[in-house]
C-alpha cells in the first residue's frame, strides 16, 4: 500500500499550462472572395462554411515565422530556459532539411540542451502533439514541452479554387505542456487512427520527392468551376466528409471507453474546426447540445492543426471551462489521420 501511494506521489502527470495564438495580419474576407467567385456571395460563404474571414500570410512569411511569433507571446510568461523539448507540427516546413524545429530553437533562444523535432500532420496534429508531449513529460524526458502548430496552406492554394480558398486560413499556436507531480491524470487517454487509402482526397501532389514542382503547369477546371494546377492543394470535399462522418463517432466511443466515461460525462467538446457544415453534422449526429460544443472559426477559418488550440483558447477566454471539467478534443483529416483525447481541466 505504501509503495503504491509512493509510486503515485512520484509519478508525473502532464497538463496544458497555457496556449497562445498568432495569426498573420493580412485578412481575406468573404466580400473579397465574392468578387472572385460571383456565384458565391459573401452571405452564402458564411452560411456554408461558418467563416467570415481568414488570415493569409504574405509570400515571404513561413509557418515557422508564425510559430515563432506565437511562441514569443507564450514565452513572455514562462522561462524559456526551462523548455526541455520543442515539437513542431507543420505541413509547411522551411526546407526539406534541416528540421524546421532546429531553426526555431535557435530563433527562440531555447537552450541547446532542448530536444527538437518536426512532425508532419494536418488536422489531427494537435492531438498527436499532445500525445507526444505527454509521453515526453511523463517519462521524465522533459519537464516542459513547447508544442508549436503552424501552417500556411494559402501558399498551396490556387486563387481560382473556391472549394479550399473559402475554408483554409494560415496561423500558429504555441502550447506549453508541463508536469504536476502527484495529481490526478489530466491529459489522456488517447485514441489514434490512420488510413492512408485516403491520401488522394486532400493532397498537394508535387513539391516533394515523389514529384517535383511542375513549372508552367496548366490550369485545370473541375466540374464545379474550381481551377487548380497539379502543384496546388486538392480536396475532395465529399470524400473527406464521408470519412469524417463515419470515423469520428467511432473514435469518440473508443476514447470514452478507454476513459470509462459516457457522452454525458463530457462537459465540452472541442473538434477540429474543419467547416461549419461538418461540425453541425457531427453535433447533430452525436446529439451534443450547443452549450457543450465549441465553434470558433469565424475569424480564422480552418487553420489545420491550429484549430483545436484556437478553439480551446476561445473556450478559456469565454470562461466555458471549469475545474474538473472533462474536455474532449477530436482531430480528423488529411492522411487520413485522426485522434482524440480527454482533458481533465484544472
Amino acid at each position: 500500500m505504501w509503495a503504491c501511494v509512493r509510486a503515485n506521489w512520484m509519478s508525473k502527470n502532464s497538463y496544458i499550462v497555457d496556449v497562445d495564438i498568432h495569426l498573420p495580419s493580412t485578412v481575406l474576407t468573404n466580400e473579397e472572395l465574392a468578387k472572385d467567385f460571383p456565384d458565391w456571395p459573401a452571405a452564402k460563404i458564411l452560411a456554408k462554411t461558418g467563416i467570415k474571414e481568414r488570415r493569409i500570410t504574405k509570400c515571404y512569411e513561413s509557418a515557422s515565422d508564425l510559430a515563432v511569433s506565437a511562441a514569443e507571446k507564450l514565452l513572455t510568461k514562462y522561462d524559456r530556459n526551462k523548455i526541455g523539448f520543442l515539437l513542431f507540427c507543420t505541413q509547411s516546413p522551411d526546407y526539406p532539411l534541416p528540421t524546421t524545429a532546429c531553426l526555431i530553437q535557435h530563433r527562440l533562444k531555447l537552450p541547446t540542451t532542448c530536444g527538437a523535432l518536426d512532425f508532419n500532420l494536418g488536422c489531427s496534429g494537435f492531438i498527436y502533439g499532445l500525445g507526444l508531449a505527454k509521453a515526453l513529460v511523463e517519462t521524465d524526458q522533459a519537464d516542459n514541452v513547447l508544442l508549436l502548430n503552424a501552417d500556411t496552406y494559402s501558399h498551396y492554394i490556387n486563387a481560382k479554387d473556391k472549394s479550399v480558398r473559402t475554408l483554409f486560413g494560415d496561423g500558429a499556436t504555441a502550447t506549453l505542456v508541463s508536469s504536476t507531480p502527484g495529481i490526478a491524470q489530466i491529459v489522456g487517454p488517447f485514441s489514434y487512427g490512420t488510413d492512408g487509402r485516403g491520401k488522394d482526397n486532400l493532397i498537394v501532389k508535387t513539391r516533394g520527392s515523389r514529384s517535383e514542382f511542375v513549372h508552367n503547369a496548366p490550369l485545370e477546371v473541375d466540374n464545379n468551376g474550381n481551377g487548380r494546377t497539379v502543384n496546388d492543394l486538392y480536396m475532395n470535399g465529399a470524400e473527406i466528409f464521408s470519412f469524417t462522418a463515419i470515423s469520428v463517432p467511432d473514435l469518440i466511443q473508443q476514447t470514452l471507453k478507454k476513459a470509462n466515461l459516457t457522452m454525458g460525462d463530457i462537459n465540452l467538446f472541442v473538434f477540429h474546426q474543419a467547416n461549419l457544415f461538418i461540425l453541425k453534422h457531427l453535433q447533430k449526429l452525436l446529439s451534443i447540445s450547443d452549450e457543450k460544443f465549441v465553434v470558433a472559426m469565424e475569424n480564422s477559418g480552418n487553420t489545420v492543426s491550429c484549430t483545436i488550440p484556437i478553439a480551446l483558447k476561445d473556450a478559456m477566454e469565454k470562461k466555458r471551462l471549469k475545474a474538473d471539467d472533462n474536455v474532449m478534443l477530436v482531430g480528423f483529416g488529411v492522411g487520413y489521420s485522426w485522434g482524440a483525447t480527454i482533458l481533465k481541466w484544472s
Partner: protein
Amino acid sequence: MNTNELIEKIEKACDIDEGTMALEDVLETSGYWDSMSYIIFLSMIQQELGLNIPASEVAKCKTVTDLVGLCKSKLDV
C-alpha cells in the same frame, strides 16, 4: 421508403423545389448537383436514414435513378 419520398429528400439536399427533379436527370448536367449538394446528400442520408454510404459509391451514380437505387439497396440490407 418509396421512390417519391427519396426524391423529395434529394431535392431538399439540392435546395431545389419539390417536383422539379426527374428520375432520368443526369447529375453532372442537372445544374443542381454540385460539391455542396453532394455533401448535404451524404449528411442527410446518414442523419435521416441512418445510412453510411461512402462518397466513392455515390460518385458512381450518374442519374437520379442511380442515387435512389443506391439508397434503396442499402435500406433493404
